[in-house]
């Protein structure tokens, strides 16, 4: 039973005769933020979301016990989640020829998949081609913010000025000082939990009540201090003290539901775009929401060369519509935004919209995952049972490579996410040998005695890593799909070797018994942190957008999602996506008022 009853302001019907001030394509972190900021400036906004709008609270049921569900949280047997092996041995499109009625990405293989099957897309409807890629998509109001991992980190000038630091790639057209006030706004408007560490490469946020650490995590934190490294409580994009200005979200009560399933938080303590941004924007009376609306083209006025609206397909009826606006804000996710720009070919823009540089779809980057370590904490064996998952996250180990020193084999860095302690399901039971009373006691005694962490490494942006449109393959609605041309490179491989070694070294130093060291990289895409396909820059020949995420070519077109990022950093992108979108939409609204965009 959800205990926050969400009453949404009734949304007006889409008026296809009206010219809106702005159309926002997409409703995730970026689109939600654009809607919030533009409506707060009084602009009339139409939001187009390709997915559905449904009562997510009735879907999530965060507090349902496993045994209250007929399949203990698992989705119906007619549905299938792609495995690592399938992503490895096969090429996309992965659902072709599958005997299952529905095929989903790997996240549906996690526990509690029945609660997220209506959040992630069915691969049968949404095929893609090219090189191996584990592409996770959520098509519904709020997009992937309904299932995000909630690690909310800032970037620093080690990222924004990375080229100046090590010579590779491009600097961002902004510095930390430009974005810091907007990070602050995001912190205060949405809520974030964490502990100040005063690290130059991982700036602190304006934190609410901090997350806590389990006993073994404290041991590791103290060990890392001696190594001049840091373990900090998970910086969770979760309001732990509540938000007086938001009636749709409760503060976190440490129910332990966060780690149990892909699906989100039905008290909305964890940030999601609908309750954090979109419902409040609707309350201004300036936002019109159209769901089941897949944008297929940004329309252009051939005489002015400016964007004039968006053509979309109704996903239920398959009918085509056109909506008009003075400004178009694309926020469909890194890959879908690039796809939309490439789909928007016209006589004025034969290579696709905003693509005079030829960089749309290119410089595609993300985080590499895989290397990690699992350890046994011997002094936790046989201890009285503690509650260790009653908190909105576990721990984060920030980057320590290539800051003051210079690693001889790779550039940039990586961080680790990890956790220790008891969880509702004792995963170690699957690995505990034997059977009978001894097996049962061993599982019981060792509950909470494990600790593990896995790395997230910066993947370098490279022009030759890109997506384009498949010349033949189309999605269920007849729209050309994405074709991947993307592989990890030598820097990622060398970084991952170091990642595994460093993980092992830290656990050994903490006195944990090493049970497993994973040295393999997971399939491209696994981090769900796609970035960079329409990057910002000062040079229109080498970039798609300016520092305000405004197209160099088309002044009334903005692309405010992760596609604008110039490099991936190793820090998770969501908070930066929202800070950038806020800054750009402030600029957009000011320019709009001055008449500079129409």
């Amino acid at each position: 039973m959800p205990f926050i009853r969400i009453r949404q302001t009734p949304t007006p019907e889409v008026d296809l005769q009206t010219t809106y001030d702005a159309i926002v394509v997409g409703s995730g972190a970026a689109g939600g933020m654009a809607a919030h900021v533009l409506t707060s400036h009084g602009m009339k906004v139409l939001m187009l979301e390709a997915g559905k709008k449904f009562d997510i609270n009735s879907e999530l049921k965060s507090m349902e016990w496993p045994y209250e569900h007929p399949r203990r949280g698992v989705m119906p047997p007619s549905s299938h989640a792609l495995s690592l092996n399938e992503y490895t041995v096969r090429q996309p499109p992965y659902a072709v020829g599958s005997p299952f009625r529905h095929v989903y990405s790997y996240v549906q293989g996690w526990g509690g998949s029945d609660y997220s099957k209506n959040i992630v897309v069915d691969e049968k409807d949404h095929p893609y081609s090219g090189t191996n890629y584990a592409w996770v998509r959520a098509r519904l109001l709020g997009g992937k913010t309904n299932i995000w991992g909630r690690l909310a980190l800032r970037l620093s000038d080690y990222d924004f000025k990375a080229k100046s630091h090590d010579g590779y790639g491009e600097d961002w057209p902004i510095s930390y000082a430009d974005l810091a006030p907007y990070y602050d706004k995001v912190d205060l408007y949405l809520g974030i939990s964490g502990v100040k560490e005063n690290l130059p490469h991982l700036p602190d946020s304006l934190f609410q009540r901090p997350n806590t650490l389990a006993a073994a995590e404290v041991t590791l934190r103290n060990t890392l201090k001696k190594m001049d490294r840091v373990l900090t409580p998970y910086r969770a994009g979760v309001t732990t003290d509540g938000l007086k200005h938001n009636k749709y979200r409760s503060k976190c009560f440490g129910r332990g539901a966060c780690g149990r399933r892909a699906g989100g938080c039905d008290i909305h303590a964890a940030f999601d775009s609908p309750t954090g941004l979109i419902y409040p924007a609707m309350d201004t009376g300036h936002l019109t929401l159209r769901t089941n609306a897949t944008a297929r083209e940004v329309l252009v006025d051939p005489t002015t060369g400016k964007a004039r609206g968006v053509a979309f397909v109704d996903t239920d009826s398959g009918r085509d519509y056109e909506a008009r606006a003075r400004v178009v804000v694309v926020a469909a996710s890194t890959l879908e935004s690039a796809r939309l720009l490439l789909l928007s070919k016209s006589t004025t823009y034969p290579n696709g919209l905003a693509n005079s540089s030829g960089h749309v779809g290119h410089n595609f980057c993300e985080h590499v995952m895989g290397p990690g370590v699992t350890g046994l904490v011997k002094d936790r064996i046989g201890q009285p049972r503690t509650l260790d998952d009653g908190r909105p996250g576990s721990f984060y180990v920030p980057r320590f490579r290539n800051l003051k020193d210079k690693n001889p084999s790779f550039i940039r860095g990586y961080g680790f996410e990890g956790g220790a302690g008891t969880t509702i399901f004792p995963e170690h039971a699957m690995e505990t040998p034997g059977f009978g009373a001894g097996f049962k006691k061993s599982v019981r005694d060792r509950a909470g005695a494990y600790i593990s962490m896995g790395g997230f490494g910066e993947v370098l942006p490279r022009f030759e890593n890109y997506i384009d449109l498949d010349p033949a393959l189309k999605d269920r609605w007849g729209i050309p799909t994405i074709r991947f041309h993307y592989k990890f490179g030598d820097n990622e491989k060398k970084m991952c070797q170091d990642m595994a070694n460093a993980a092992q070294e830290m656990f050994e130093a903490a006195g944990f018994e090493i049970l497993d060291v994973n040295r393999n990289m997971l399939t491209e895409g696994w981090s769900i942190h796609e970035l960079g396909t329409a990057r910002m820059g000062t040079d229109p020949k080498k970039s798609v957008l300016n520092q305000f995420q405004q197209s160099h070519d088309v002044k009334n077109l903005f692309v405010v999602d992760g596609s604008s990022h110039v490099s991936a950093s190793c820090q998770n992108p969501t908070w930066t996506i929202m800070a950038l979108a806020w800054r750009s939409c402030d600029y957009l609204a000011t320019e709009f008022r001055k008449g500079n965009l129409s």
Partner: protein
Amino acid sequence: MSDHDNELSRRDVIKLGAAATAAVSLGVGHAEAQARVGGFLTDSEFAMLDELSEMIIPTDSHSPGARAANVAAFIDSRLAEAWDEKDRSDWRAGLARVDALCQQINGAPFMKSSAEQRSAVLTRMAQNENNPKAQEEIFFKELKSRVVYAYYTSEIGIKQEMEYKGNTYQVEFAGYDVSKER
């Protein structure tokens, strides 16, 4: 598009019918096969699974075991609706293999053997758990993983055996607040 598919489709019903036919051809009475509503296993197969599950996770002084947690019923209902017919045929063959192994070791079928004799059979099945090769070794891995999942997601497994204290509202987060270190 995604939807809720809790009802059986026509195709599922046909597949279940095929499973029932397979049960008959294996010499299992049709009436027996249908004795438990919604299940796949015959009564005798079910009794064997129930015993095997309790041997893997038995009742002890700390908490009730797999039998009390209705582990066999959960596994049986998942088998009944499994999408791949092979899941059902592998399980039927696996249980038959346990019986055959018991006959070979003890000279009697599994359910007619003593507790010690049954334990000897399970010990044999578990002997190469990390690298199973023989049919009964592969079946042990499958059996154990299903028993473990069903037991530790049951109310007995979560609340009595593991004494899980979460899934409830906490005034303060569990653990150490390191912001108070300095």
